[in-house]
């Protein structure tokens, strides 16, 4: 039933992130002109920011293209920009055979926090999108069951947004100036 495969560490091909960035950026630009807002190397990770309305098409391309083959959705999460005007969704994709990873980011206005779902591409995104909706209020268009997952259904805020501070606002002993800022 069990077979052990010798997987000497380091035997696998590890492509440098810079090459990954060039490869992915080149392929996306070739196919979707103007979809890339920004492409950069952050630490050891290739990071590509996309136009929100073209994200789904690009993600589908990244997954289905034979060369890129980002078949594995490692992570999906949300964030809010520092000016509190935009929300973002961040996808971490992984091509296991080649062992390359890429981070796809997309940002959209908080007044209309909508983005197409990727549940049609990866089943795994179902709960991760629900979690992102739960905490940031991102509406994933086409999601089969978009409702809260970790918080109670009756909750009427999206708690990870920066407008909901964690601490009791009447407390003064935890303000930044107490720590020299």
């Amino acid at each position: 039933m069990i077979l052990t495969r010798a997987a000497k560490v380091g035997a696998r091909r590890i492509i440098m992130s810079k090459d990954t960035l060039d490869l992915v950026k080149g392929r996306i630009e070739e196919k979707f002109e103007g979809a890339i807002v920004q492409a950069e190397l952050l630490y050891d990770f290739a990071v590509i920011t996309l136009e929100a309305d073209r994200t789904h098409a690009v993600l589908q391309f990244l997954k289905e293209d034979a060369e890129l083959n980002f078949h594995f959705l490692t992570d999906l999460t949300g964030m809010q920009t520092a000016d509190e005007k935009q929300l973002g969704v961040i996808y971490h994709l992984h091509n296991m055979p080649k062992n390359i990873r890429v981070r796809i980011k997309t940002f959209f206005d908080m007044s209309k926090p909508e983005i197409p779902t990727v549940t049609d591409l990866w089943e795994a995104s179902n709960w991760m999108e629900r979690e992102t909706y739960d905490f940031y209020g991102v509406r994933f268009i086409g999601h089969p069951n978009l409702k809260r997952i970790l918080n109670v259904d009756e909750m009427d805020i999206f708690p990870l947004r920066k407008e909901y501070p964690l601490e009791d606002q009447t407390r003064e002993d935890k303000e930044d100036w107490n720590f020299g800022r």
Partner: protein
Amino acid sequence: MSNKETTGAAETEKEYSTLNLGPTHPATHGIFQNVLKMDGEIIHDATPTIGYIHRAFEKLAERRPYAQITPLTDRMNYCSSPINNMGWHMTVEKLIRAEIPKRVDYLRVIVMELSRISDHIICNTIIGQDTGATTGFLYLFQWREHIYDIFEGICGARLTTNIGRIGGFDREWSQQVWDRIDAFLTGFPKALDEFNGLLERNRIFMDRTIKCGSISAERALAYSFTGPNLRAAGVDYDVRVASPYSSYQDFDFSIPIGTSGDTYDRFTVRQEEMRQSMSIIRQAIKNLPAGPCHADIPDFFLPPKQEVYNNMEALIYHFKIVMGETEVPAGEVYHCVEGGNGELGFYLISDGGRTPYRLHFRRPCFIYYQAYPEMIKGQMLSDAILTMSSMNVIAGELDA
């Protein structure tokens, strides 16, 4: 409670009964609720409800200095908290671009592999427990206690360890710790073999677990399975190999994989992983480099007490670190480690403030637990219990 549904072709009325499995049922090993739609004893559909012990760690982390986030990670997968701690330390070290001495890497490998063994002990003995073999559960749990004794010797805590620090370890391990590790490595293989003999080729156990809760490699990848569950389905993905951290590239070990992704394969993969972990620990002890037990990063690593009391500079550093007043560069990193049950990722965005701007935990069991309804469809209720325990779903990590 019952609901009626008409099946189109046969024009016969079929009645399903609803069964609430959980939230607090002794067989679920944690706070999980599953609303099962049952056709007799066969499961027709399942709806998991999660979030019962949600503690908003991601929000809490946004108001905590980096060193104070380590205890939060303890409480995710509490069966192998040291791996979570190490993963977090390494994430911050990546962010501040700290050079970590080889000795720290090796010491961390020892701690992480010990906690992987303790994690697998819990999961595999509970599989045995759920098939009715209580003996192995109680027998191996004393070895888990020995591992906790080792952790206690290193950091003073047992379950929620908060082990090590950003940059390394707070002190060298005492001789007592090394003796305990030695005793563990001598005694545990025998106990593991006995436990293995109790179950692995046991006819009753095999009949209960083979083809129970199986999932194909394609489906497992679609559901973003990682860790032993993915390997049991036949994909040899292991973070330790794919993106080596903490000097795992120095070690020689094998990745066990299964073929059918059922409960039996998950069991056997974990059994073999425990043996591999022991081999890794032996290699680490044998090749342990000399050197300091922490990195040279005075902004993050607390100075020795002796200096704090006698030296102004050390006192300032001590104060700054304790008050969370350390300079952190702005940046964003993703770091992943092979946790007890899969790829545990930390996605950290820093804006240069004293706390993370955003911290997201990629919790493996939150992601793969959504495949549970698909895996138990058409199975018996008792198989559903077994499937859940073999998936190693930890409530603390699921709900974060």
